[in-house]
């Protein structure tokens, strides 16, 4: 009985659904790679008339996550030294969020917490070691530093919504892109609560020479090291020989 009620209650939620298109679902990093733009476009599929409540679209792209060490300097005996350190368990190397309107209108706090959409929610930090009272300021610092470097982007109102049916946005991926799966999520919201969600993966991979060198450096490290040294010695010898010829000639 309870299950039936739940299904009935859930039904209207599925009345609207996101259909998504991507300008590309994989990005190849070759030697000339210099950033890339991804165009996301889609439509809202529905079986009934457009509901009167407020519609919102939130797009989030997250790069692969990694643990971070965050340190804070303080003045001790007249010099600036690292005093406190907090380990952030997982922070995405890249994160971009775009919305169709002001943040507070398109997404409620509760839904943000549940789906971990905004940047502070996307970073996972279990806790600070004893003695650090303001662990939050360390997470804030990660966000601040990465926003400045362009790795974290917030684009409020950057999703264009037409006739409550069609939407599109574009997101710039920076030149210092890390390889991996970029999880792309689209949320459809009504009055700030998520009614439909679509998730796909943009595959970012090195190709060609980049791929070959990267794999060689991991799988055949000794050979890779020797190759690097051989190039260095060869170039050093070559330059010396060329200069000797130039001086004689």
């Amino acid at each position, binding site marked *: 009985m309870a299950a039936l009620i739940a299904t009935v209650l859930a039904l209207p939620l599925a009345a609207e659904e996101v259909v998504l298109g991507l300008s590309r679902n994989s990005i190849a990093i070759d*030697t000339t790679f210099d950033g890339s733009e991804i165009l996301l476009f889609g439509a809202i599929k529905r079986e009934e008339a457009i509901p009167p409540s407020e519609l919102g679209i939130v797009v989030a792209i997250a790069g692969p996550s990694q643990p*971070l*060490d965050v340190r*804070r300097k303080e*003045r001790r005996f007249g010099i*600036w030294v690292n005093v406190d350190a907090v380990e952030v368990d997982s922070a995405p190397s890249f994160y971009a969020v775009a919305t169709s309107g002001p943040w507070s209108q398109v997404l409620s706090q509760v839904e943000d917490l549940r789906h971990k959409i905004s940047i502070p929610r996307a970073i996972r930090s279990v806790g600070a070691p004893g003695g650090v009272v303001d662990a939050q300021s360390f997470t804030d*610092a990660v966000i601040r530093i990465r926003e400045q470097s362009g790795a974290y982007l917030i684009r409020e109102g950057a999703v264009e919504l037409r006739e409550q049916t069609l939407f599109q946005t574009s997101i710039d991926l920076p*030149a210092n892109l890390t390889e991996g799966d970029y999880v792309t999520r689209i949320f459809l919201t009504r009055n700030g609560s998520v009614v439909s969600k679509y998730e796909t993966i943009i595959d970012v991979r090195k190709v060609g020479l980049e791929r070959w060198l990267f794999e060689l450096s991991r799988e055949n490290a000794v050979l890779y090291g020797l190759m690097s040294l051989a190039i260095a*010695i060869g170039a050093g010898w070559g330059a010396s020989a060329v*200069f000797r010829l130039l001086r004689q000639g």
Partner: protein
Amino acid sequence: MQIYLPIAEVSVNIFLLLGLGGLVGVLSGMFGVGGGFLMTPLLFFIGIPPAVAVATGANQIVASSFSAVLAHFRRRAVDLRMGTVLLIGGLIGAGFGVMLFNYLKALGQVDLLVTLFYVVFLGIIGALMFVESLRAIRRTRRGGPVAKRKKHTWIQKLPLKMRFRTSGLYISVIPPVLVGMAVGVLAAIMGVGGGFIMVPAMIYLLGMPTKVVVGTSLFQIIFVAAFTTMLHATTSHIVDVVLALFLLVGGVVGAQFGTQIGARMKAEQLRILLAILVLAVCAKLGLDLLLKPGEVFSISEILPS
């Protein structure tokens, strides 16, 4: 023209890398220093991750030092015997240094200790060298005879004497081995080749002629940097060969020009320029400690081990 670096995972301008390599190469050829102390912060500044910058810098140093040492060889300005003795000391010292480094790391605060060490050490070396070479320059201006630098008498009394023909020395091997060891320890802790500590030590402690010092220092730096490169390549996989390639093309050309400039200069002029360089690095590090940083927080990725 941009190029994406496979290990550093950033896209950078090719000509910027060539220029950077060239600049550091000139210094390397002139003074016999590897230039890692200059290259690492410059690479960091253009957006290369610090760990990759250190490891790749070592590979570039192999190239520019090799290029420069060949030029010095032709001029018979490399004391192979002294270089080998220093290198043996250096390798023993580096072993101790790595152990000491891990011990300090376990205590925490290793960065601070390294920087403090750097500032004090560079400050003393730079200042002493500056004063000494200034005096030497004044003396030659007055037209007086070039005074022989004072040789330490206690060094002459040590056993195990060996003849170093290229340097014109007949001294015990104990002081060069000790100098090599001390530099090895410092190099391992500070993560640099140690050229700009080695060069003053050879001039003032061992009494070697300045012209021979540059080539001999380069000779042993090649081995230290090659060892460092292999260590980084096999343990943490952070040597970026594409980055190294562009840096070293600039570096080897710069090193050739550097050697020519160095050969045309007087020994005391060379010494005073190196002293100024050392003092400048010292001042920069000192200010970093004293001034409030723009951002008190710093992030570093934890590498999966």
